[in-house]
């Protein structure tokens, strides 16, 4: 398991691994928004929580198809399926590696981008906390989508269509927590819902993903 995590992290930071791609996309997206809606601080501050969360969602989506597609192409997935690791564990580890490479940098750099979007001061801790609670769910749900579409040529688009609706609850509660933080209301309830969604998804999705992988490997 640890070897698999190390391998995935090492592959991500080597040439062509795509590390930082999601972060760069997030940065571009958040820079483009002020150009699109105009520079008035009031408007930006009101939409900032939603933009930041949608941006995080889309950046996460960018690298999802790599979770299993590359391993499927070079045959590693067949070999992993016959290895002593349980396939559920393989899925969980690969989702964790995806989160460490994609989700964690988003969590860390989101406050900087919040500055670009005039996010009100009190919202910053809630932005970081909500992203930290919510992005693991994005990676695990994404791994499920990747497991369902593995082996399909150009499965990336289908993957986005499958996964984005599953992201809706996380988006709603994540953005709501930040919005409440911004206006000084109590963000506790949406944060609890966010955490509950993440926990449920963490507990269930590895099994669903492993089942989907087994079907696709046949």
């Amino acid at each position, binding site marked *: 398991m*640890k*070897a*698999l995590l190390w*391998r995935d992290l*090492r*592959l991500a930071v*080597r*040439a*062509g*691994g795509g590390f930082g791609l999601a972060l760069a996309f997030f940065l571009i997206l958040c820079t483009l928004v002020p150009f699109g809606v105009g520079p008035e601080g009031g408007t930006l501050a009101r939409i900032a929580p939603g933009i930041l969360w949608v941006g995080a969602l889309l950046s996460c989506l960018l690298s999802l198809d790599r979770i299993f597609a590359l391993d499927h*192409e*070079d*045959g*590693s997935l*067949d*070999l*992993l*399926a*016959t*290895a*002593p*690791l349980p396939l559920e564990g393989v899925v969980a580890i690969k989702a964790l590696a995806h989160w460490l490479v994609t989700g964690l940098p988003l969590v860390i750099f989101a406050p900087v981008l919040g500055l670009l979007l005039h996010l009100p001061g009190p919202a910053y801790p809630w932005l970081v906390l909500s992203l930290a609670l919510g992005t693991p769910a994005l990676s695990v749900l994404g791994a499920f989508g990747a497991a369902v579409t593995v082996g399909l040529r150009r499965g990336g688009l289908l993957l986005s269509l499958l996964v984005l609706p599953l992201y809706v609850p996380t988006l709603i509660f994540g953005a709501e927590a930040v919005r409440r933080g911004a206006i000084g209301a109590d963000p506790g309830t949406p944060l609890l819902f966010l955490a509950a969604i993440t926990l449920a998804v963490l507990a269930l999705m590895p099994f669903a993903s492993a089942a989907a992988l087994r079907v696709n*490997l*046949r």
Partner: protein
Amino acid sequence: MSLLAVRDLAVARGGLRLVEALDFALAPGQALVLRGPNGLGKTTLLRTLAGLQRPVAGEVICDPDTLAYAGHADGLKPALSVAENLGFWSAVFGGAPVGPALAAMNLTELAARPAHMLSAGQKRRLGLARLAVTGRAVWLLDEPTVSLDAASVGLFAAMLRGHLGQGGAAVIATHIDLGLPEARLLDLTPYRAMPGRQADRPAGFNEAFA
């Protein structure tokens, strides 16, 4: 006491029965060479033995933790070096040392080279060296000698013989002579599934949608 036994096995690919009524058993030290024309079902049979797909009928009797599968693809990561690739599989399969495996396939000098710089034959040798670090008893090999030169085929045959000598077993689908006189030959052609028999024994759920 057999490492791997197959009883009345039938395998299918995409709902189409390929090989059926297959019976054999492998004892420690034995190798079985599968022969047959392209498309007969050798790969499907090996994938079924490896547990990657389910048999349509019959059973495969073995401990899944004794099987090591090597398919057409080598499972190499181009960005990792030869030693890193092999080290990963060694760690996954319980940490056997990679040095002897590299030496067995004459890869020691290439250990630090990234896998994307290897030739097709060198990649294959690395893929085969992986078998040595799995520490598993039954090797399921799908055309292991593709893109190997004569010297490397010799290296591989020596590694295989060493494995059999230590009480291992192997099922090998190949079209060439590996120089293993002790291996049993199994021509799959007589086991080709008869189209007429499909009706009374459906190949599986998928056939309903075929």
